[in-house]
């Protein structure tokens, strides 16, 4: 057997809870033992639409939380924005319905061996995987600060319990309806300096990840970001989810973000190449 997708399984999971929280749906699935294999940053790929659906592709969702519940066994929680037809279908799925899920997929966030000061930056539902990450970091005695941004208050996903593992939590919204008015990137430098940040983790829209990458570079910090590229399969067979990424050998390649990501080192990514393959990419046309 291959080492790719090596812990992944395709299972039928029951939706045991589906609640609207702000602009999102918080959805809980029972997935059995496999919940124990999940690490912060992993994602699931969900078949959407049911049997007679015209949607033929899976949808990827970051895992917000996974745990072993005494009653329900292994559970996985997702935070889903009702955006297009696939996510809307999922958000309106009734409790007790079964969905076809593949998990865990993708590379997880790297957890430092020794305690560090970490800044976690989330945009919109991109906050979802950060809470599990915060817990994992806290368990390693890290200092965890968090900044979450969104266009408006209802799009900040930050449950009360999520704050447990963080030392500080700052919100920014474009419209000022919650926390500071503005973008996350505007508050990051100050936090880095004040809290002596040593590593940044981020998840959110690509433009945000790019901005964070720039700031991380300015401060010479490591920056792991979970990217979000259109994925057709989630398991590495379709080649739709690629990004130009520089490898350890210094050569940039089109890399599948579903199996080499979604978590990647921000500075390795060739950002915003304007719908073109940069000529420096290996095998560029």
């Amino acid at each position: 057997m291959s080492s790719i997708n090596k812990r992944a399984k395709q299972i039928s999971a029951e939706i045991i809870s589906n609640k609207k929280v702000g602009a999102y749906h918080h959805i809980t699935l029972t997935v059995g033992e496999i919940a124990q294999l999940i690490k912060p940053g992993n994602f699931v790929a969900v078949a959407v639409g049911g049997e007679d659906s015209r949607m033929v592709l899976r949808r990827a969702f970051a895992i917000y939380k996974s745990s072993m519940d005494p009653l329900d066994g292994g559970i996985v929680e997702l935070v889903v924005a009702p955006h297009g037809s696939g996510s809307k279908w999922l958000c309106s799925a009734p409790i007790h319905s079964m969905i076809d899920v593949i998990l865990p997929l993708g590379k997880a966030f790297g957890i430092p061996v020794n305690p560090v000061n970490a800044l976690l930056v989330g945009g919109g539902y991109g906050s979802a995987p950060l809470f599990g990450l915060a817990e994992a970091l806290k368990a390693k005695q890290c200092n965890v600060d968090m900044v979450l941004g969104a266009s408006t208050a209802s799009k900040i996903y930050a449950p009360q319990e999520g704050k447990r593992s963080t030392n500080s939590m700052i919100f920014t919204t474009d419209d000022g309806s919650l926390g500071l008015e503005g973008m996350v990137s505007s508050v990051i430098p100050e936090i880095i300096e004040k809290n002596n940040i040593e590593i940044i983790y981020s998840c959110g829209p690509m433009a945000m990840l790019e901005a964070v990458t720039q700031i991380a570079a300015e401060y010479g910090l490591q920056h792991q970001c979970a990217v979000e590229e259109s994925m057709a399969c989630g398991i590495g067979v379709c080649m739709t989810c690629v990004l130009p990424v520089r490898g350890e050998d210094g050569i940039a390649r089109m890399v599948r973000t579903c199996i080499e990501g979604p978590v990647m080192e921000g500075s390795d990514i060739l950002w915003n190449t304007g719908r073109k393959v940069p000529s420096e990419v290996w095998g560029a046309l």
Partner: protein
Amino acid sequence: MTVAFDYSTSIGPTSLPNPILTASGCASSGKELAQFFPITELGAIVTKSIMLKPRSGRATPRMAETPSGMLNAIGLQGPGLELFIENDLPWLHQQGARTIVSIAGETVEDYAILARRIRTQPGVVGIEVNISCPNVENRGLVFSCHPDTARAAMEAVRRNVGGDLPIIAKLSPDVTDIVQIARTVADAGADGVALINTLLGMVIDTRTMRPRLAQKTGGLSGPAIRPVAVRAVYQVREALPHLPIVGMGGISSGQDALEFVLAGAQAVSIGTATFGDPQAAIRIKSELEQLLIERGFSNFSDAVSYAHRAEQ
């Protein structure tokens, strides 16, 4: 219930234990799927089309979902011939998988070189010649869209591959007369044809008000195109009753696969369905077997082309 059902099939000189293949470009080189089922249980793995040189493929966005289908413009991203021979083929061989290597060229000479290198690799049971590629020597016109270029590419492969390894020409449906192209490649020495590659399509993003894909156009695949694919198989089978056909285009269930078999396919390839269900190919393998047994067939070959039988 144990039924003695003979599921084997053959494409030219190669026989396969069953007719279920992966579609080129929809299963990479097998490693990714191996986690979900034993890939040796498929008739063969058809690998992603390989080119001479490493290739980055196209810029993103490379795909768009469409009603019952998808558009892709991967642009044949791949490691190039030598790394493929070094890394992918040995792994497949080691697993015991039967491999059909899909090759794609930019020039007629490319096809010749690719065929020559691939033919001697262990574990390779066939070569699929993806001639639905732009010909850089001729205004980027797709090889398989014109009889002359289709013939030239296939002759180049045939000259370099002996009779023991079947060469299968993969055709584009975007032509006025697919039977003419099939006849041309058969005359040029193809042992079979693979029908169909994707249809050229476009999606406009109504938000940005531009084509969704960076590449503008892409290939349409999935259940949406199945009726076009079944028609192509039926037409080619009717005109060229002895030319083996690998059928594909929107197969996502045993029922779908059965349509292709009845229309005349000796084997079927599972493409886009794998994106929705990594176990699609192996599921379809057992669904199709069950349907054939239910219909009273004791071997697969009897069902091939059965829709062409005379009216009672």
